[in-house]
């Protein structure tokens, strides 16, 4: 069974600074995928970034990047130059290849201080 753990229920950062959200996971699968989703107050779940476990290179999407440490089963999200619009609940999730079930962490609420 897969599990995903987000140990930081809440985080805050000053606007324009960098923040890192932590995520660890556990799986017995060799092929799997990791995701970060953002859920702002509007409640829509928005895909932020995706990482294939077989790829060693860390995924990046503009100001968002991940630090994927496969041996440590760690998948942290770094947000650079934080903006007020980044304020949201962030969920880490995993899915093994061929599966249709996302396993979510409990989420981290990110606050951006102006």
């Amino acid at each position: 069974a897969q599990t995903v753990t987000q140990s930081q229920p809440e985080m805050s950062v000053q606007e324009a600074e960098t923040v890192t959200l932590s995520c660890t996971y556990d799986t017995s699968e060799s092929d799997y995928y990791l995701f970060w989703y953002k859920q702002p107050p509007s409640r829509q779940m928005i895909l932020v970034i995706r990482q294939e476990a077989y790829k060693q290179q860390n995924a990046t999407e503009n100001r968002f990047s991940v630090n994927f440490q496969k041996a440590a089963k760690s998948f942290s999200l770094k947000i650079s130059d934080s903006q007020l619009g980044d304020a949201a609940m962030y969920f880490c999730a995993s899915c093994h290849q061929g599966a249709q079930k996302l396993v979510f962490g409990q989420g981290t609420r990110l606050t951006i201080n102006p």
Partner: protein
Amino acid sequence: DTEVTQTPKHLVMGMTNKKSLKCEQHMGHRAMYWYKQKAKKPPELMFVYSYEKLSINESVPSRFSPECPNSSLLNLHLHALQPEDSALYLCASSQVQRSGNTIYFGEGSWLTVV
């Protein structure tokens, strides 16, 4: 803008009512999902349809009845709900392929059972 559209955005129903939540996607995805999300919690998978056939039912009570009329539409029929069923119901879709699926979510339907 989301490519997964859900209606209605808000629904209030009595415990004896029958109502339906609707979801539509035009991304050519052949997998569609219903998730339930309570406040401050991650989404919980309810149902998955692949190629218009129910592939996963996460032991959801029969008062929730899913329907997939075609590859673009997904309904969730509600009958004799309980107040504890009040939640955000998220529809999602993805491709069906072995190389991993990115799941795209709609904006959700807020359901209140009175």
